[in-house]
């Protein structure tokens, strides 16, 4: 189906009305909640005034957190992708790397954030490391599985023309792995924000990032600021996910996972 027709279809209330109704219900519940539990939820008007009152403040801190998240993600991605190629090409590498990767995965990585702060101080380094570590495993596992998922028949066809390992990797394995890589990215983009925020909160002396904003504001009981920062984080995460999904549709237009159901 053409992009334009798809876009027009999404404008139909059938598509957006349910979500909008749901949002209105939640806002109504919030309003009621804020009256009953003033120590948990600020009134929506306060939230709005806080955000609208100093948008530059939130944008600046959001920029810092986003930078840490994307930077860490990029480092984790490159490391995981390279290792996934190694692991899929060499049994020796697989036996060496996978056990360590699995142990890393079951380690509660947010718990090492304080240790990293001790080691690296309040600069960006511990935040990038925590984010990279959190993103690492899902990318490694998915990419390695994807690289190995080339069908036996396809491999046989290209082995009978003596394609080199590099040619098989570049022309067959990496494209075949792309749907797996995108599945990993959809998990890892939101996770990268979690990593950055947790690392900021562990570094109790740093002075920017939305995690720091939340930590400081909650210690001073400024509920509206806490929730404003949370809302900004949620919006940021959603936008990242949207970007990955759109990129996936473009890159994987040939793949069945992006085929639209007929209704």
């Amino acid at each position: 189906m053409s992009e334009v027709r798809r876009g027009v279809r999404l404008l139909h209330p059938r598509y957006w009305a349910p979500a909008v109704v749901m949002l209105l219900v939640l806002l109504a519940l919030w309003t009621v909640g804020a009256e009953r539990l003033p120590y948990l939820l600020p009134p929506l008007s306060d939230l709005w005034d806080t955000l609208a009152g100093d948008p530059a403040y939130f944008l600046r801190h959001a920029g810092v957190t986003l930078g840490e998240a994307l930077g860490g993600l990029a480092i984790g991605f490159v490391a995981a992708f390279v290792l996934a190629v190694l692991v899929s090409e060499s049994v020796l590498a697989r036996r060496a790397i996978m056990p360590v990767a699995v142990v890393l995965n079951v380690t509660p990585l947010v718990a090492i954030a304080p240790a990293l702060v001790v080691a690296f101080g309040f600069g960006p380094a511990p935040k990038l490391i925590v984010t990279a570590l959190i993103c690492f495993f899902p990318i490694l596992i998915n990419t390695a599985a994807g690289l190995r998922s080339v069908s036996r028949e396809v491999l046989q066809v290209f082995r009978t023309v003596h394609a080199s390992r590099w040619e098989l990797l570049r022309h067959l394995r990496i494209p075949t792995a792309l749907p797996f890589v995108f599945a990993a990215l959809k998990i890892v983009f939101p996770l990268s924000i979690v990593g950055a925020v947790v690392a900021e909160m562990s570094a109790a002396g740093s002075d920017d990032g939305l995690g720091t904003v939340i930590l400081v504001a909650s210690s001073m009981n400024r509920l509206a600021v806490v929730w404003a920062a949370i809302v900004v984080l949620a919006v940021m995460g959603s936008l990242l996910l949207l970007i990955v999904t759109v990129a996936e549709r473009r890159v994987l237009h040939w793949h069945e996972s992006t085929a639209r159901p007929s209704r």
Partner: protein
Amino acid sequence: MSVPAIAVRGASRVYASADRAPVEALGAVDLTVDRGRFVSVIGPSGCGKSTLLRLVAGLESPDTGSIEVGGEPPERAAAAKRLGLVPQRPALLPWLSVLKNVTLPARMNRRADRGRTLPDAAELLRKAGLGEAMHVLPGELSGGMQQRAAIVRAFGLHPDVLLMDEPFSALDEFTREALQEQLLDLWEELRATVLFVTHSISEAIRLSDQVVVMAARPGRILEVVDIDLPRPRTQDLVLSPDFHDYEVVVRQYLRDAFDHEHQLPRRRDGGDPR
């Protein structure tokens, strides 16, 4: 006499596995295929047809005996890109257009292409009735069209030896017959030696100069039937008494192959593990 296109001498292949008795997929098989001939291999499931094809393709090595393709080991023939393979499923790459799929083998192992002129892929596709579909992704084509593209891909390198493993088995009767015809047209033009695995007696007879009947446990050649029918093998010929006689002969050998199998103790497992 010139060097045969395929020479299999006493080749055997045993698959050992930890939890089962070793399977003698092929037991000392001899087969010689002359240049430019179309040879079909038929036999009960598990008699080693695919194994034979993999050995000739150089994808595996025999445990004993030797295999030569055009007088040299299969690995060398593969390195020189003189082999083509059409597997049971089309095995096209879903992210490449039909034309790009067909020309991909030419972009790999380029050293072997030096000093060769390859057939025009677009022209071959047009001949195979895929002229309109050239720039379309494989996912948008029918199974028959996909298999045609896979055949054109294999012919695209102008290989000396073409190995086909039940390429039409997933297609309906009519598509199958149309594809047989197109395969013969391409073969008449490009003249490769073809080793063609099939389960269909009439398909084997219609396509081939020789039909090799195999039996299982151990995989072996029971009989080689020469098919002395004129070419082109038209639809009329398929309905002729001569054709029918060949069918009777091959069917009888095939029945023998099955009987051989059932005299042996029954297998523990139900089916083919692959």
